[in-house]
């Protein structure tokens, strides 16, 4: 399809702004831009049709099953979006006096209170804009904690090899040295390995639990104790919180800092890659280090705390992706405590159901019952028939199913990671199970055909190597 620039025609355009009702003031010539500005010259009809065409070449949760593991692609309730569009939220200037933004501050404080209940933390900051940003912020809290205690040789963050790539990347950005530890063959943290690497240089330990293979680490209390005994702090990557809302809380498992992904667990949409919101929660002893400003309430009046000496400072402009918080609060209010628990129960039920119905043909590297997601491996198919996880994923596209997360976690070869979420019905799961079985059958009997997939999508497999080797990153006029 054409780019919007290729639909442009000189002289066309939309008439949006009024003429000037005050004397026109222009820049001095030496300040004016010289280079001609190329923007589309296009009618409103064509803009509308252009984006409709793009929409038809986009796959959203509304299009079909989206079991992208670790991304929690649950249904995004429409009421959330409507609430975020209320003029009383969307038209509020961030630098209005607090007395004129009491509603915004109430949203933040109320959501903070509920998320503290859900995570077992004592305070939460909404400033981080995404999960990785939350990790970075949380790690700075850990740094500030040790520094305040003059315990300055603690410069190592321990990360299991099953971790999301953002964990080590965030630790490096926060100035830590990353120590990777291997997992046991059952997919858990290796306690012996952990004991070997902890010491008086341990700043902290980052863990996703349930972990990235979909297992709740049964040794969780021992793990967090090992770290605490060594003088380190425990960081909880909340990417997988959808499994345990109302069932267990990171704060009760020995975690000191958590980040959540409102755009996963709390049903706010991903927007094709963002905006998200990655709030960071912490225990009492770390509150003073949280980013500023903080919202505080006194006798029903909300105010912003702008200064606190020990704070790590701000990690972003203003207060965070506020409208995402509005959506999350709408969701929490709708479901309530019991409803959140019910969501987690069904997320885990759906995942176990799928895993059970597939395990006779697809190999499950970990036999334990899963939490909200599970990992399959097609390593054998690859060896015997030359059909890879990528081939299976691409075959699913032709059935209108979004593929699972591929090749992650790194500790499983030819991995496919499925997270069905609680908002899918049994019929959908049964349909997808059937398709996955058919695709497997096809891989066994006619492996060649899978290399050709997908066939029904707007484009076939793209040449990624050429894209990276000879980067074309913009249209040239």
């Amino acid at each position, binding site marked *: 399809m054409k780019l*919007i620039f290729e639909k442009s025609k000189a002289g066309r355009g939309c008439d949006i*702004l009024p003429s*000037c009702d005050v*004397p026109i003031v222009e820049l001095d010539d030496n300040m004016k*831009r010289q*280079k001609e*500005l190329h*923007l*589309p010259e296009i009618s409103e009809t064509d*803009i*509308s049709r252009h984006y409709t065409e*793009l929409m038809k*070449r986009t*796959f*959203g949760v509304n299009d079909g099953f989206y079991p992208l593991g670790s991304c929690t692609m649950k249904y995004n309730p429409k009421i959330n*979006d*409507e609430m975020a569009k*209320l003029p009383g939220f969307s*038209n*509020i200037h*961030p630098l209005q006096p607090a007395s*004129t933004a009491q*509603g915004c501050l*109430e949203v933040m404080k109320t959501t903070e209170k509920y998320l503290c*209940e859900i995570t077992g933390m004592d305070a939460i900051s909404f400033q981080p804009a995404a*999960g*990785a940003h939350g990790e970075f912020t949380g790690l700075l809290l850990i740094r500030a904690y040790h520094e305040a205690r003059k315990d300055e040789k603690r410069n190592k963050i321990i990360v299991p090899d099953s971790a*999301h790539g*953002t964990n080590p990347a965030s630790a490096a950005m926060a100035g830590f040295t990353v120590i990777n530890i291997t997992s046991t063959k059952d997919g858990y943290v290796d306690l012996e390995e952990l004991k070997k690497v902890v010491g008086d240089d341990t700043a902290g330990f980052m863990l996703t639990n349930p972990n990235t293979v979909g297992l*709740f680490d049964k040794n*969780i209390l021992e793990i967090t104790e090992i770290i605490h005994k060594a003088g380190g702090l425990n960081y909880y990557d909340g990417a997988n919180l959808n499994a345990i809302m109302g069932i267990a*809380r990171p704060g*009760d498992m020995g975690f000191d800092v958590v980040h959540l992904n409102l755009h996963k667990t709390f049903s706010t949409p991903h927007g*094709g*890659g*963002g*905006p*998200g919101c990655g709030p960071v929660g912490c225990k009492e002893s770390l509150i003073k280090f949280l980013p500023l400003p903080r919202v505080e309430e006194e006798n029903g009046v909300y105010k912003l705390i702008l200064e606190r000496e020990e704070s*790590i*400072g*701000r990690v*972003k*402009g203003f*207060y965070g992706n506020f409208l995402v918080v509005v959506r999350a609060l709408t969701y929490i209010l*709708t479901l*309530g*405590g019991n409803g*959140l628990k019910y969501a987690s129960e069904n997320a885990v039920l759906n995942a*176990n159901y799928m895993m*059970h119905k597939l395990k006779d043909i697809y190999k499950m590297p970990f036999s334990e*019952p899963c939490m909200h997601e599970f990992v399959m491996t097609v390593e054998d198919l690859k060896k015997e028939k030359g059909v890879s996880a990528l081939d299976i994923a691409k075959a699913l*596209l032709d059935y209108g199913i979004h593929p699972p997360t591929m090749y*992650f976690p790194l500790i499983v070869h030819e991995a496919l990671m499925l997270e069905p979420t609680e908002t*899918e019905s049994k019929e959908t799961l049964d349909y997808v199970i059937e398709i996955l079985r058919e695709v497997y059958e096809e891989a066994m009997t006619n492996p060649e055909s899978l290399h050709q997939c997908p066939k029904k999508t707007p484009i076939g*497999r793209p*040449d990624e190597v050429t*894209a*990276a080797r000879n980067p*074309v990153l*913009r249209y040239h006029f």
Partner: protein
Amino acid sequence: MGTYVPNTREEQQEMLKAIGYSSIDELFSPLPKEVLLQKEVLLPKEELPNRSFHIPEGISEYEVRSKMTKISEKNIVFKSIFRGFGAYNHYIPAIVKQVTSKEEFITAYTPYQAEISQGILQSIFEYQTMICELTGMDVSNASVYDGETAAAEAVLMCVEKKRKKIIISETANPEIIETIRTYCNGLDVQIVIAPGKEGKTDCEVLKTLVDQETSCVLLQQPNYLGQIEDAEEVGKIAKGKDAKYVMSCNPISLGILKTPAEYGADIAVGEGQPLGLPLSFGGPYLGFMAATEKMMRKLPGRIVGETKDSEGRRAYVLTLQAREQHIRREKASSNICSNQALCAMTAAVYLSTMGKQGLEKAATLSMSKAHYLANRLCELEGFDLVYSGAYFNEFVTTCNGNPDHLMKQLEEHCILGGYPLAGKQAGNILWCATEMNTKEEIDELIHIIKEVAKA
């Protein structure tokens, strides 16, 4: 309680039975007993043992709407806004809101599966092109969180083993400076603030600060006081010692003002909120980032590139991924994963709707209204421009009394006046105007200030 779980209790039982379980609780048998929450989730908190989970019972959509609407009504939506300082009240064309409300765009994830994500990928490619056009730079990424984090990522791109000094002009938005400081908390770098003089960067002092160890100089244009900096001179000073030059820009101003590329910048960043995003109490906004081709492989975050598919058709993919966290882990150029994709699309629709003429008009209107506002304010006793240099759509004045007191009075007329500055600038007001402020509105503001002065 509201729920989005489609399966009935009967279906859930059926599924449990299929797996071989008799109850939901069994699903959670792998969890150590000690971490399980108590069941009485609805009891008042004081009646619960330590392991509580106190969130009220869920409510219907109807009730949620009413509750959230009531909360939103506790905020004041001002009918006139004369405040900017990093968040600008520009007109958002209707088509922008409509297009970006399409369910597919809202609910999609990052476009990992290119075959079914061409829509998002192409929209990012078009956005990247428009950002390159606006800034004059060679390459743009797919966005970062906001203008502040864009500035922080940009200065970190410039740090090298032998160049660890980051120089930031004092005239950059204080939130940018604070964010950069935080980003550097754990890193072995030095931050130096170059002082301002008469509302602009003091080039004489800057010359003495830039040396062989300087990684970059960051300048905001127009700066936070509204002044148009002598950005070419600042660039020359940076280049003189082979330091990189980072500029943070207001994207609307780029409709008429010299581009960062024309000023010699190596990296251009900025807050994209003015491009079609509502004020939203500070977010979601949009951090844009563009650079010279030389710095391309140091850019953080997603980048979309053009290629061909198996049948030779034009196609778009996420590319240059060897920079990113999922491949490089602790050696990545940044940890960023989710960005502000939908906000980037919003900016692209905005720029397409406005076109070159429209953007120029938005810029010229904003500048003209600001000058009219400044002239009218200066007619009043006690109000004078603090700086004499050229400005775009923001400027600083003195005040005839306590700025907070004045603002309170304006509030009663549903007007959000300029921002009362603090610190060294205490007593002064930072004003802003955009195409949203009519002559009538400005005249009314002046009238009210006169009345307040009389009283």
